[in-house]
């Protein structure tokens, strides 16, 4: 039972973490909570659906990620850069509008019918007492690898140092010779790429729908806020935390009374409210002192 709960949390948390890290990275460098961030997952998934009719799935997925990155950069240059010039609040409201437009465009192009990436059905196998399908194991492995790669890039590369410099103080970074716009473009590329990986993984588990990414809005925002907006490590820990809380709450059965599964999004939200009440600065954040 415990092993299964952990396995479920690993699978669910892996998809949330990829999105939450991107969201928190963009927030960290631009102080902007991008609601449309979830749409990169949807776009990556649909791009892979399209490409899978031409290429084998791994190549189609790689193309899907590249296309999502290109769309991420294009949307920043064409839309968000201008919105941000008017302020973070305008940009956030604008990002909600962009999210709705993207969903409508996807629906217009692909219809409302879910679309599948070709895959072979595989039976679940027992690993340390937990039932996992080979595709779920691949999902966790790919997510952890992508998260580790992102962590390493931010921690040990010159680009990572510049990202951290812009996140800490954009003005100081600028006068120190950091090309802020290039750093921001790199952050958008990383965020869109990670989101696309998450969307492709989700579509490979079931199918791509126009609301694929938007459906994860609540748990992803919960994870990013609980982790402390701007904190990558916090977002990762909180993502797996939100997923574990969801799994425990849904598995709990007290005298035949249990939480209906369709309340799953609400669990992440309750988690968020509790975190805001008891630790508003986030898991790894530091409480600001007002004098």
């Amino acid at each position, binding site marked *: 039972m415990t092993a299964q709960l952990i396995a*479920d949390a690993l699978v669910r948390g892996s998809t949330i973490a990829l999105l939450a890290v991107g969201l928190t990275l963009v927030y960290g460098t631009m102080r902007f909570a991008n609601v449309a961030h979830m749409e990169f997952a949807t776009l990556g998934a649909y*791009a892979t659906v399209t490409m899978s009719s031409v290429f084998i799935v791994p190549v189609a997925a790689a193309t899907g990620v590249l296309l999502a990155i290109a769309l991420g950069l294009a949307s920043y240059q*064409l839309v968000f850069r201008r919105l941000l010039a008017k302020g973070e609040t305008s940009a956030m409201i604008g990002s909600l509008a962009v999210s709705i437009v993207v969903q409508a465009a996807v629906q217009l192009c*692909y*219809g409302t019918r*879910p679309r599948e990436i070709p895959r072979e*059905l595989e039976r*679940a196998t027992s690993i340390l007492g937990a039932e996992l399908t080979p595709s779920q194991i691949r999902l966790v492995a790919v997510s952890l690898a992508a998260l580790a790669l992102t962590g390493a890039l931010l921690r040990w590369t010159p680009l990572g140092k510049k990202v951290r410099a812009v996140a800490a103080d954009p003005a100081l970074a600028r006068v120190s010779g950091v090309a802020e716009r290039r750093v921001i473009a790199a952050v958008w590329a990383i965020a869109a790429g990670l989101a696309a990986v998450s969307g492709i993984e989700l579509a490979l588990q*079931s199918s791509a729908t126009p609301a694929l990414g938007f459906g994860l809005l609540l748990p992803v925002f919960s994870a990013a806020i609980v982790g402390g907006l701007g904190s990558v490590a916090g977002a990762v820990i909180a993502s797996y935390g939100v997923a574990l809380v969801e799994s425990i709450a849904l598995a709990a059965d007290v005298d035949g009374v249990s939480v209906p599964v*369709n309340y799953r999004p609400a669990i992440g939200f309750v988690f968020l409210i509790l975190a805001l009440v008891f630790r508003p600065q986030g898991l790894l954040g530091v409480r600001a002192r007002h004098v």
Partner: protein
Amino acid sequence: MRPFRRRFAALLLLASLTAGCAETKAEEPASKNTAPLPSPNPSLSGTVTLGAVLPLTGTSATVGKDQQRGIELAVAKINAGKGVLGKRLAVAVEDSQGQTTATISAARKLVTTAKVPVVIGEYSSGNTIPLQQYLQQNSLVGINVGSSSIELRKTGSLQFSTIGLDDKVGEFSANTLFEKGYRKIAILAPNNAYGTGIARSVTDVFKKRGGGVAATALYTEGQPDYRQELKRLSGAGPDAYVVTTYGKDGATVNAEMFEQGMTKKPVFDIYMTQDVPDSDPKAVEGRTGMDVKSSVSGSDYESYYRRTYGGAFITSFSGFGYDAVQLAALAIDKAGTTDPKKIAAAIPEVARGYQGVTGPLAVGPDGQRLAQPYSLGTVRSGRIEFR
């Protein structure tokens, strides 16, 4: 931003969208007509137009397109004969997208623009109930061709169904399960008027017979996965799983049941043509279930359908569309007018003793079908074989 970069960014967006749209068009199933529809009778002049609101896109598009085929076949048959009131019959079909808001918008368009006296549709009870309520408010006749919630009994005096409601489905399914020797079942159904109605009626009858329901999970449609719901069912250790799902959601549920090893136990599928055609054959192989009888092969309607579309029934729902058009046409002829109230008054009269392709169509005082024949089926080599 330099003009080149701006143009490049715009080009990227445009190229991606174009690629997606182009690919979608390629995915549209090609028409496989093998025989033309019967030619219309040249002596007919003028047109009587009815309306239909069907899920032509969205998760239930497979069923919606099959309903449309039934309507198309009935219209061709009527027009090859004496038509309606000596005029050609036409049915204006609008897409509900499987969504309530779009259903009502489509109905509004039919009512205000085409000014139809009768609207046929939809498929999901969650859409058909508000559709019929809307039609009743506008004093128009509605004929349900795919929904089975018992709430449809209350939609109004101008509203009818050519499909039997959940109480009949539940009774048939629960009795079949009990007679197969199962004593502990677990039920999976969508969390809407249809799903809760089926789950309740199966539970009531199964318990009355002496069986037990170990777990019931109602799933929210359109989710990327249903593993939590399925785990709740498998954790209850039933003798058999009872599932009723539709469209692509059903395909996801079926794939996940296979992956979780749940298909090693018996699975009984209520309305199996709703989800089996969309599912991976490996996931549903050997599954038993039930459906309405129009899917049974060998009838004149089945050969008419096969001849026209070059294949067997995709779902069981084309027959209800066919019967609805025939019933409406007979009622209009009987009433001698397209006045909705007079058509509604004529429907019970013409339905009494009328044998539709889905069985006897007689309706009770609530406008609902009195008898609905069902069949048991098994999936073999990816196809449903009905007994």
